[in-house]
């Protein structure tokens, strides 16, 4: 028999006796017997000094562990015995009472997360109408007169000669017209397209577009800002890929992919095994857009970007049907409490 064996035996015995104790008095006696000044565990600890130094450490640790375990079992047993007394009528497994708290719609949650990230980067919010003029939605943004987006097939028009904005960048055109640089804004809001409602498309969706106009704004600033946003929003290890693209209101323009948030870039179902997810469009504001708003495009430059809120929500929660957002089934909504 070695000392550690003795401790283990003592521990087992104590556990059994504490477990079957039926009064607080008995528990107190057991405490004294094992942990009191003359108790079994205490005795072992006291005797440590007489052990050879190489055994001392192991035995001491085992005895201390046993003491901690016993103390916990004693406390649990005391709780059990007290709970059984006259005041022990609380059933902690019953649900707490009080008001049910509702859920903010998941799209507004994601939009809020995006906006707050940009607030942290020094952007303010600007708003504009959903029912827009052709001028702000297209012309002020350098869309040529025969651009396909201006077609009835893609855009919803209302009686009276206006249209439902197809992006929130018209707010940029409105702000540029009324304010002077420096301006640093995001334009969150609802946008519309003339599309059939399906799992992947809807008549309406939400966007957060943003822009900065000042002296000396460069493509490097745009890249830096988007890297900062994506890392803040998706995680510090996110990588970005800028693919040159075309938008009428920016030049140069690019589409931005981030490394897949699920697989990290090795390839999976979510990123269709490409390792990348397309999440936003961006570019340097076309000088024509600044000029149309009466801003000197030689003195000032600017960048702009835009992203779909539904797209980010679909990715974040791996939702595969965009219609769920507008169906408003309460069982869906409450999952996002």
């Amino acid at each position, binding site marked *: 028999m070695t000392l550690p064996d003795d401790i283990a035996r003592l521990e087992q015995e104590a556990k059994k006796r504490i477990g079957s104790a039926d009064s607080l008095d008995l528990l107190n006696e057991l405490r004294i017997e094992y942990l009191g000044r003359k108790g079994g565990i205490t005795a072992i600890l006291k005797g440590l000094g007489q052990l050879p130094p190489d055994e001392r450490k192991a035995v001491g640790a085992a005895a201390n562990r046993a003491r901690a375990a016993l103390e916990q079992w004693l406390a649990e047993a005391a709780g059990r015995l007290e709970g059984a007394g006259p005041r022990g009528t609380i059933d902690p497994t019953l649900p707490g009472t009080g008001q049910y708290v509702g859920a903010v719609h998941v799209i507004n949650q994601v939009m809020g997360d995006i906006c707050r990230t940009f607030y942290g980067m020094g952007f303010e919010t600007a708003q504009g109408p959903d029912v827009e003029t052709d001028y702000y939605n297209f012309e002020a943004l350098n869309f040529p007169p025969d651009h396909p987006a201006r077609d009835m097939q893609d855009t919803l028009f209302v*009686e009276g000669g206006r249209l439902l904005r197809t992006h929130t960048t018209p707010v940029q055109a409105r702000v540029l017209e009324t304010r002077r640089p420096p301006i640093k804004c995001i334009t969150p809001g609802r946008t519309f397209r003339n599309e059939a409602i399906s799992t992947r498309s809807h008549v309406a969706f939400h966007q957060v577009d943003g822009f900065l106009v000042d002296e000396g704004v460069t493509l490097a600033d745009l*890249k830096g800002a988007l890297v900062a946003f994506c890392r803040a929003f998706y995680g510090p290890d996110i990588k970005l890929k800028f693919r040159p693209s*075309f938008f009428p209101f920016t030049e*140069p323009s690019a589409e931005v992919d981030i490394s897949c948030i699920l697989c990290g870039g090795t390839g999976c179902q979510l990123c269709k095994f490409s390792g990348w997810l397309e999440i936003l469009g961006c570019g340097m504001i076309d000088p024509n857009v600044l000029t149309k708003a009466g801003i000197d495009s030689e003195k000032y430059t600017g960048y702009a970007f835009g992203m779909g809120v539904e797209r980010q929500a679909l990715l974040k929660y791996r939702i595969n049907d965009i219609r769920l957002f507008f169906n408003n089934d309460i069982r869906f909504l409450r999952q996002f409490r």
Partner: protein
Amino acid sequence: MEVSYQWLIELTGVTWSVEEMARRLTLCGTACEGITPFARHMDRVVVGEVCAVAPIAGADKLRRATVAIGAETLDLVCGAPNVAAGQKVPVALLGAKLAGEVEVRRATIRGVESLGMICSERELGLSDDHSGIMVLEPEMPVGAPLAEALDAADYRMTFELTPNRPDSMSAIGIARDIAALARVRLRRPAVRLRETAEKAADVISVRLDDPAACPRYAARVIRNVTLGRSPWWIRRRLMMSGVRPINNVVDVTNLVMLECGHPLHAFDLDRFGSREVVVRRAREGERFTTLDGKTHVCDPQVLLITNGAVGVAAAGVMGGENSEVAETTRNILLEAAYFDPPTIRKSRRALATQSESSQRFEKGVDPNGIEYAIDRAAALLADLGGGEVLAGMVDAYPRRIDPKAIALRPRRCNDVLGTDLTAAQMKEILEGLEFAVEDGDPLRVTVPTFRPDVEREIDLIEEVVRILGFDRVEDARSTIGPLFTPLHFEDTFKDQVRQVLTGAGFDEVLSHGLADSRLADLAAPELPQLRLVSTASAELNIMRNSMILSAVPILGHNVARRNVDLRIFEIGKVYFPPTPAGEWIEDERILLAVTGDTPHTWREKPRPHDFYDVKAGLERLAEHFHWPALEFVPQAVSFLEPGASFRLRVRETEIGAIGQLSVKLARQADIKQAVWLAEVATGPLLPLSSRVAAYEPLPIYPAAPRDLALVVDETVPAGDIVGAIRTAAGELAEDVSIFDLYTGKQIEAGKKSIAVAISYRSKERSLSSEEVEAAQQKVVAAVKKLFNAEVRDK
């Protein structure tokens, strides 16, 4: 746009793998979206030679083909009409996996055991042609793997091009980007043309009636062409780009279009009907039959190529049936033209047709690329069809379109990009794209006419960064812009409403804002409707003029799914047509709705949601934003049930309505349970909202609580009683609240019992019991007088 990988290699000489090519092109804006191996379905497929074809007893269409595949000979059952002895054909052996999930298995058909299959182009995944078996070139070696014989170690690269880049709609266009990226020279196929002594100009002339619509029209004449099948290398390239091979003449025009992006058209000169090409607008009602057999009734939007009398082609869109190249064709009139892009777009729309040609013309082809395109095609026709090319090109080009010259300031380029490039680096990139660059500051850049999209300095800067690569622009690490941007109250207002209402147990819903006018006619017939001009669905034909129009379908959707106990809210806009003054109004609203029962817990039994649950939501908002008192004015509201319908007012301003959803509307969404709701405009409330609370020192002196039980007529509003008590008790009434309300058996019919707790307190002193009693007596006297109240002893 689809192009063969090998073709791009041939045009550039780069040694990139197909993946590398796709990646680098994508990163310069020529997005490659797909790579498909050309020989995907050629495993276990070999070249065979048909030795004999024999009928099979009892089968009309099936025949037994004896096919040599090297040392071995196989008997194969074949249903294709074109199988014939002496042909070289692709033979799929047992186990071959063909396109369309077809796997070749041993089969016995009409007593003939077939140990393989002779394939069509479709079965090999080469094209959609399944009219017969594919017939191979006679020189292909019997028994060789088909992939080798067809030189099919190739990939089809699929490009998703942006609309601003017409130049990249060709193999040379894409190869040009590759050459710029790899810093190599583009290897355009050389053209060696032998011409006859006879001049084309002696045979044909061209007249432009509308030079704005057709700035240039060039033609060549090729005589004595032998029509036939194109060699495999041409058919292969066409198939790789998804174009069906037809005959050598049509194939050559298509090949040249795919190669350099310039659409060409070949007319049968003998069927042309005259010796003069006249390009003019169609006349109103002029009929014209395109080569797909469709007859169009044209209008002047359509630009026609005519023979002076009738149309022979819809310019830039499609040739005519009357002058189409057919099997009998010997002499060719070859067209290479430049049409005004918007003209072709309108023309194509008016004809409701589009083609590979129109797609290129409407984006803008190179007006000065015509010589190369037409000479390349003529040389190929001479080579392949044995044609004789008449001397010269007939060229109607009244006003030459010259390349643009643009100044590029190297410093500006760096200022926009945030880079530190030298002028020489910029020059190298632009020259790689075949721009001519003259040294100096600024650089003088001449933009080739195949780049109509490049018009300004910024367009050149884009070209520089496109080829340089966005990854070569270093991400800024510090911020730029204003030092401070405000957080507007309007922005946080909605978030605060969300916090308050979710805290009060309401779930937020979100609608798109489009609505059904029929529902609006019922819900708010008095409100004007903003109608959509066109819409995908008949149920979404207006913008909502009331939040009710979205709430009713949402409630209906849930109730139909047995989600019957609901407390919801929405923050959103309603929309109206312009006012007579031309003002467009969008109003922000908050909608609250409850239906079904309150939650059933182990402690609390459920009860039906009612008016007061909706009111509670408004009260939480009123408390949070410190709104003035809400007033409830009984009044009919079109979407509310009569008798349970109130207008909401704050300081005389109407802000909305509250009550029970009219049963008529609820029925529209199949809702049979009571729905209580409120719609409130946020516009008037915003200026009344504040999150600054008024601080008052805590009371020093004790309060004296008194209760009062009254019996009054049921119609007396509780709020009036509370108001009267406050007035009567004056400053001493610190708080007046209702703590019980009873109607029923214990009380006379038409009466209610109402119990009020009054807390008396002074800020200056402890109140004596006499003072409190005196105040209480005033209160009792007031309620007796004002409401004829009976005061009950407690």
